[in-house]
């Protein structure tokens, strides 16, 4: 039996960021448990992109402030390694007049929030990525401060910084039971230990609905497999991430030289499958070659899958729970938990410590799904 002030469930990017932020604000005796190995969940399976081009204000603000942090993360967290942060932009293709008109609105919103995105003609887009198929799109948007960040290194940076502040971690330890006394959380039982707790944070990523259920809290999220592949490394030919919502692709060349690309497989069942399929490989290859014909020459070396934890409005839940004192949630990132992690950690630590939040948090609350049915849904998602 152990007494801890705060038990964080999940050592992915959200969990480590929350742990670091709480510890840096002075909270003591924080422990993080994870059911598997380091970055075994969605964090270690993500596409490694960080972007600010969204169509809801909440997502734009989360992303903008997170990028501001990433720009100084190495110094702030005193990480000895290389975070592989590069800001060479996201180029997002419009493939129809309708999408082009939506993108005009998106850029207006983004610019109003100080995100330096702009609308580009086909010729301007081709100047940035010359190997684009000019017949595959009508226009594009570009934000030069979007980019790439190594998810493994970023997670390790947060973890090591948290450890220096006294946070402890255990891996291969799974939460089995969460005990409550009416409306207050009391203890957590894992495969190895019984923790007497004041605060529990559910940062369990793909398994956050199950962890919520252990505490008797209904969280309206589900998980689905999104697949991705990596090619052999080649010399640098593409600076920005190339993305299209309508063609269903994101594709970037990471600093290491490999191309990473992913897409959504329509009609996925809601479960924890993270395996690879030939159907994905087939569709991914066709889509990539249609938009970026040159990439046809590249060898695929590996494919994998990871869970998107989907919320009803495709925006995260970063929230306390009204029904259970001491139980906090960071989940439902809908595929974008990695790039929002700095704000996830900051905002949830402010909520837990009852400080004034840096951003409005009503739109991130669990309660929003009880009171509203016509959410503003984020559309800019692959």
């Amino acid at each position: 039996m152990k007494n801890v002030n705060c038990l964080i469930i999940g050592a992915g990017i959200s969990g480590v960021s929350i742990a670091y932020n709480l510890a840096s604000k002075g909270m003591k005796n924080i422990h993080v448990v994870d059911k598997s190995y380091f970055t075994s969940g969605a964090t270690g399976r993500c596409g490694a992109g960080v972007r600010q081009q969204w169509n809801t204000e909440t997502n734009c603000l989360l992303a903008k402030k997170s990028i501001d942090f990433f720009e100084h993360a190495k110094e702030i967290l005193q990480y000895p390694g290389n975070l592989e942060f590069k800001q060479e932009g996201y180029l997002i293709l419009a493939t129809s007049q309708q999408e082009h008109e939506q993108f005009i609105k998106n850029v207006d919103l983004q610019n109003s929030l100080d995100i330096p995105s702009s609308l580009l003609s086909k010729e301007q887009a081709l100047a940035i990525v010359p190997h684009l198929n000019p017949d595959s799109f009508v226009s594009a948007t570009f934000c030069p401060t979007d980019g790439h960040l190594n998810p493994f290194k970023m997670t390790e940076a947060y973890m090591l910084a948290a450890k220096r502040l006294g946070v402890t971690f255990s891996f291969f330890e799974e939460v089995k039971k969460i005990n409550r006394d009416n409306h207050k959380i009391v203890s957590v039982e894992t495969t190895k230990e019984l923790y007497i707790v004041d605060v529990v944070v559910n940062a369990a990523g793909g398994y956050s609905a199950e962890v919520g259920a252990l505490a008797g809290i209904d969280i309206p999220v589900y998980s689905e497999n999104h697949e991705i592949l990596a090619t052999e490394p080649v010399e640098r030919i593409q600076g920005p991430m190339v993305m299209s919502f309508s063609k269903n692709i994101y594709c970037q060349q990471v600093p290491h030289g490999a191309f990473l690309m992913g897409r959504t497989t329509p009609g996925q069942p809601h479960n924890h499958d993270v395996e690879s399929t030939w159907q994905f490989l087939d569709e991914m290859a066709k889509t990539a070659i249609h938009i970026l014909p040159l990439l046809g020459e590249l060898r695929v070396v590996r494919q994998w899958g990871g869970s998107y934890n989907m919320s009803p409005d495709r925006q995260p839940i970063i929230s306390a729970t009204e029904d259970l004192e001491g139980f906090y949630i960071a989940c439902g990132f809908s595929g974008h938990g990695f790039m929002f992690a700095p704000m996830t950690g900051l905002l949830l630590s402010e909520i837990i410590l009852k400080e004034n939040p840096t951003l409005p948090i009503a739109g991130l609350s669990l309660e929003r799904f009880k009171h509203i049915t016509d959410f503003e849904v984020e559309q800019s998602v692959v």
Partner: protein
Amino acid sequence: MNKKDIIICRCEDVTLQQIHDYLDQGYTNFEDLKRLLRVGMGPCQANTCGHLIQREIANYLNVRIEDVPVHKVRPMLLGVPLKSIAEDNDEEC
């Protein structure tokens, strides 16, 4: 021979010294080492380094080599150009 001169992963140029440094930091399974050092992420997909690293982990933890989990095997077995996949879409029975 100096551990800095012994290449364990030839796809990503990872030395025995680096493996031992990360083992010392507490990263004691293949999946940890893969994510932080890129071992097993290159063209051979751990066909070369997988068993070498399994042995290093076994020695480090003082356990039997068969008790050290092997790396996750992912498709493809061999690198295949994207265009070969995209173009070979005839319905064959």
